[in-house]
């Protein structure tokens, strides 16, 4: 069980794809202008990641080492095509607003990276869990970034959620504050760069706090009583 806890910790925090590995920066910066888009792309990536991890893990013993990368890429491409067709069929508005970044999941380094680094060395159950956690970590970063940018940029939350979840979801739309002048920078890619930079800084601060607390604890426990005489 502790193995699974370690996988979850790695995916969600310690080795987070968005904040630590800095993989998949292109969609991270391009589509996080609103929370809805962020969730849409995050869930699509997560679905592909789980599927590809399971399939790669299943075939890992039958694929010759020399041609493993092309095989992985073909598995991923097939899954991305399936996800793209699904989104096209059931969430057409989202399909339009995600645009090229949906098919571009195939080039997202997180997926090939996890296939190579984890799924090709572990059993399907672990690989699936790793895909879930890595995808979750990536989606969470996308969501935080999307929420911050949407609030700063147009003062709303869940704008256009009905495109993702169906027509009932338009009640989710939240007007946080009224903006007369939209803060354009937050909506533009440079704003996403600033946002990611600040998020990474925040994570480093938290890590530093945790580390300093841990050393303080160990310092108090290593106190020893001197039993020998010093001459």
């Amino acid at each position, binding site marked *: 069980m502790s193995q699974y806890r370690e996988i979850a910790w790695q995916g969600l925090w310690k080795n987070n794809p968005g904040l630590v590995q800095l993989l998949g920066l292109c969609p991270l910066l391009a589509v996080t202008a609103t929370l809805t888009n962020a969730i849409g792309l995050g869930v699509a990536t997560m679905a592909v990641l789980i599927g590809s991890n399971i399939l790669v893990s299943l075939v890992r013993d039958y694929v010759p080492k020399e041609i493993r990368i092309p095989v992985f890429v073909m598995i991923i491409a097939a899954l991305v095509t399936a996800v793209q067709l699904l989104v096209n069929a059931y969430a057409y508005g989202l399909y339009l607003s995600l645009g090229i970044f949906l098919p571009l999941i195939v080039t997202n380094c997180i997926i090939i990276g996890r296939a190579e680094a984890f799924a090709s060395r572990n059993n399907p159950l672990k690989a699936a869990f790793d895909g879930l956690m890595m995808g979750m970590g990536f989606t969470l970063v996308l969501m935080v970034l999307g929420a911050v940018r949407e609030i700063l940029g147009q003062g709303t939350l869940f704008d256009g959620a009905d495109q993702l979840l169906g027509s009932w979801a338009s009640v989710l739309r939240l007007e946080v504050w009224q903006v*007369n*002048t939209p*803060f354009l*920078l*937050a909506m533009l890619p440079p704003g996403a760069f600033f946002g990611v930079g600040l998020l990474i800084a925040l994570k480093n601060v938290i890590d530093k706090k945790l580390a300093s607390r841990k050393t303080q604890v160990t310092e108090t426990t290593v106190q020893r009583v001197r039993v020998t005489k010093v001459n």
Partner: protein
Amino acid sequence: MAFKIASSPHINRQLQTSTVMQRVLLCAMPALVVQCAFFGWGTLIQVILAMTVAMCAEALIMQLRQRPVIHTISDNSALLTAFLLGVAIPPLAPWWLILIGTAFAIVIVKQLYGGLGQNLFNPAMAAYVLLLIAFPVQMTSWVAPITAAQHSVSFLDTLHIIFSSSQIAVADTYRLGIDGTTMATPLDTLKTDLHSGITTADSLQKLIFNGWAGKGWFWVNLTYLAGGLMMLRLKLIRWHISAGVLGALFICSAVAWAWEPLTHVSPLMQLFSGATMVGAFFIATDPVTAATSNRGRLLFGAIIGVLVYLIRSFGGYPDAFAFAVLLANISAPLIDYYIKPRTYGHLRG
């Protein structure tokens, strides 16, 4: 009577950073007065607001970084940044504009990189670009010079316009005044006219020009030129960067003007419009973000001058100093890498 005998080198008393910044600010003060005379109280209010915000932001960050607060604040560099941003933005811009801009300049552009001496970009210009990209409407409505405006706005009215929570409501109250007060800058007007096929000579007949340069702008630029020459006299800056900027701008515009005077702006108008003089003497000469050798400085200035000419003539924005300075800032390390002064006694190369 004992003479103190010191060994060489016999160095003059070094100027402190705070003294240098203070003198630069003093050299820029006459221009602030002239700008206020032509464009109303707004500029003064913006500058004071910017300086207050800059001080608070710097103190806050120093506190967070656990560095000496008073020592850093008293080096006056934040004041200079705030001043440059304050005179650069439109005088009647809402208060939160200068607040966001100054906080960005101090916190992100300057202190996140390690404070004075470590920043890659000129803080005031980076903040100006941020504001221009984020709030294009507010940043492009300049006030008309008082001599061309139909109504002038009093000090209290200016305060009211800047600090009101809802700009639109107040703009309605002052509708008469606003319509007669804000208009495009001379460079903007000229650019629009040239695009719509009006020749330079015809465009210069408009109310906002005094025949060959923008009303008010000419005098503002002239005062900045005087302030810049004063800084040269006091040895606060060297001549290379400013000469590079003005020389390159003059040569480019002179060649184009000699080629086709109908559709190009005269070199003198280029030199005395917009941010040319304040940029050449007060912004580009920032020692932190510029090249460090003398030949490198000339090249650095020339890059700015050429970029300003290119963006003013062919780009989408009427004035280009902020973009030009930022682009030159990026290239400063490269210039320093390739242009190194020859050490005495060594061969070239």
